[in-house]
């Protein structure tokens, strides 16, 4: 059985085609003069002059990853591997290591000796950011991975990831950390605390 398709009702003016084409052309020409010669705030234009002009991304745009810093410049990351566990593209490779014995964090925490993200393999889902319990990995940089002709340029190591600032230009986050020695940090010995 054939469907019955309702046809739009068209007047003679519509069917003649020419009046409608002229109307459209008039709008185009009106917009052309308005956008070319009128004041900036009166312009009605939907496009930007890319790449000279770049439109702001939404607040929650997921850009290239960054590894946030502690106040002393070391990574906040404790190499818990939660991000690489959550990663559906399996693009994060981490090798955990222990701090040196004279470091105040030795024994409490570990750090990533190697932290590599394959940005070509990454699907920018943001699960790693969700999974991170330490606010150590973020995608709030607001920029894309720079294009390149070489695949190896997309293998971002720890130093590269730590050298990318957030949208606010800083390398830290606003969430506080409890460092060893702080009164709030776990691990006060009995002699100090009891």
């Amino acid at each position, binding site marked *: 059985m054939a469907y019955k398709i309702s046809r739009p009702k068209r007047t003679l003016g519509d069917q003649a085609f020419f009046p409608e084409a002229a109307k459209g052309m008039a709008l185009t020409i009106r917009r052309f003069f308005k956008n070319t010669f009128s004041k900036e705030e009166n312009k009605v234009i939907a496009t930007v002059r890319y790449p000279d002009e770049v439109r702001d991304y939404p607040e929650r745009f997921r850009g290239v990853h960054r590894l946030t810093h502690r106040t002393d410049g070391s990574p906040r990351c404790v190499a818990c591997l939660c991000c690489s*566990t959550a990663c559906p593209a399996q693009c994060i490779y981490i090798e*955990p290591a*222990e701090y040196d014995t004279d470091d105040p964090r*030795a*024994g*409490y925490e570990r750090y990533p000796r190697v932290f590599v993200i394959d940005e070509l393999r990454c699907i920018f889902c943001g699960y790693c950011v969700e999974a991170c*319990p*330490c606010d150590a990995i973020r995608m709030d940089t607001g920029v894309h991975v720079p294009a390149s002709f070489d695949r190896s340029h997309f293998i971002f190591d720890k130093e590269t990831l730590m050298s990318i600032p957030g949208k606010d230009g800083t390398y830290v986050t606003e969430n506080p950390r409890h460092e060893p020695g702080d009164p709030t940090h*776990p691990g006060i010995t009995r002699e100090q605390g009891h």
Partner: protein
Amino acid sequence: MPTFKLDGQEIPFEPGDTVIRAAYRQGIEIPHYCWHPGLSIAANCRMCLVEVRSGRQMALPILKWDAKKNEYVEATKPKLQPACQLAAQEDMEIFARSDHALKAQESTQEFLLLNHPVDCPICDQAGECKLQDYWLSSQTKLKRKRTEPVHKPKAVRFGPTIVYDAERCIMCTRCIRFCDEVAKDHVLDMRERGNVNEIVVSPGRELDHDYTLMTEHVCPVGALTSKDFRFKARVWFLKSAPSVCTGCATGCNSWVDYDPRYQRVYRLRPRDNEAVNQYWMCDDGMMTYKRFHEDRILAGRVRTSGRTSEVSRDDAVRAAARVLEKIEPGRLAVVLSAQASSEDNYVLAKLAADHFETDRFYLTARAPWRGDDILRHPDANPNRAGATMASKGEPRSMEQLVEDIERGDVGAVLSLGPDTDLSEAELAPLANLVSEGVGTAAHVNLTANAGALTSSASVVVPVASVAETSGTFVNAKGVAQQFKKALQAPGDIQPAWLTLVEIGRHLGWEIDWRRLGDVRTAMPKPLPPSSETTSTEPSAAPAE
């Protein structure tokens, strides 16, 4: 067999069993922390509280919040009992999933987590932690406590192998009881009470007996961590293969925990077997996993005119066949290995007897180590009995081999494995035999790792290690136990028995063994009684 009822299910028990043990034997887990099948009963964690319904029920008066009346009303609740301490009796009615029992489990769980730092991301127990498991099964609520938790010592060094974190500790005393009852060394104890309670090492001592890693193994939470495994891997990435420890002739059943992505073994864990090792392994045994990767031989080596060159594995097999072809019958010495599986030894002995018509069987083994009357056997080889079985009669010692070489009776050596109890100086005649390289004299060594025998060989053929192949070990008591392959052998490396069949085929040995099952069928009985080798305890399931 008498039975009792647990949540409506009939549970058989033996006289003297506790409720939790009878259920455990049936594969039913009543939540618990302090109870361990191999340790005494402490009943201090209160996680296994169950409701017992009987004629003379003890009821406690309580105040219960009534939301309708908006006030507390008087009510009663049954007195709950710890299942780990409650002796099972005929026709008992136990409820581990009743409302009262579930409420008790939830409250206990909340109490245990009250001062817990919840540092799961940096805790090595995460993924196999009872606190996590029971939080999910019994609590699933956020912490209600809003104040700062009580802080206790962290990263305390207990000894060369163990680090202790008091904040994660739930004071189940399993580690103390293990040291007292199994290792027979009262080196751990507890001090203080309440929320500053902690485990301490005896003054002037450190945790340094032969079973320290077992304290970490029995720890249901992340309080005790092994320095070796600490921070190395996350357990949810690891897979487990049932294996047998290669440390000594006890043949403790173990799980090989390996990461399939990197094809690397990270640790060994005891696999419960009441007949052999109960629930335990010794430290040195647990560290034997390092041998799987240490000095691994990945390519063949052929020595020609005094110089050793690396060749591919296939070339090494062909080179081995070429040198063995020239050997006069009867002048070949076959060195079986107490470190290799029964299958490897059997195929080697069969090849020697069938093709070379030799009866010169020797046995190489690692030097004995310190034994004890708990688990450690003085013979540091897992399969001396199996290798002896293969040789049809007592094989001769390596000293005898050296003597025979000096006397000129032996023209060539075909050996298995890298290990020997002789020093390099004592092995000098063997090295001299082939110092010139491949000629009329030859020493063909099939090995996974470099060792004393490898360095004196003229042809080295790489084979799969114990972790990379399946096989059988016969322990000192004569129990044959099978172990399963965990890792893929790197490259085109094959198990020793298959490599030997391949060498044999080059020599014209007409045998068609392709799978391990073919060898096992051909091998002399008794084959391992499978019931004895499999894990008897159901809750010993690995973190897979």
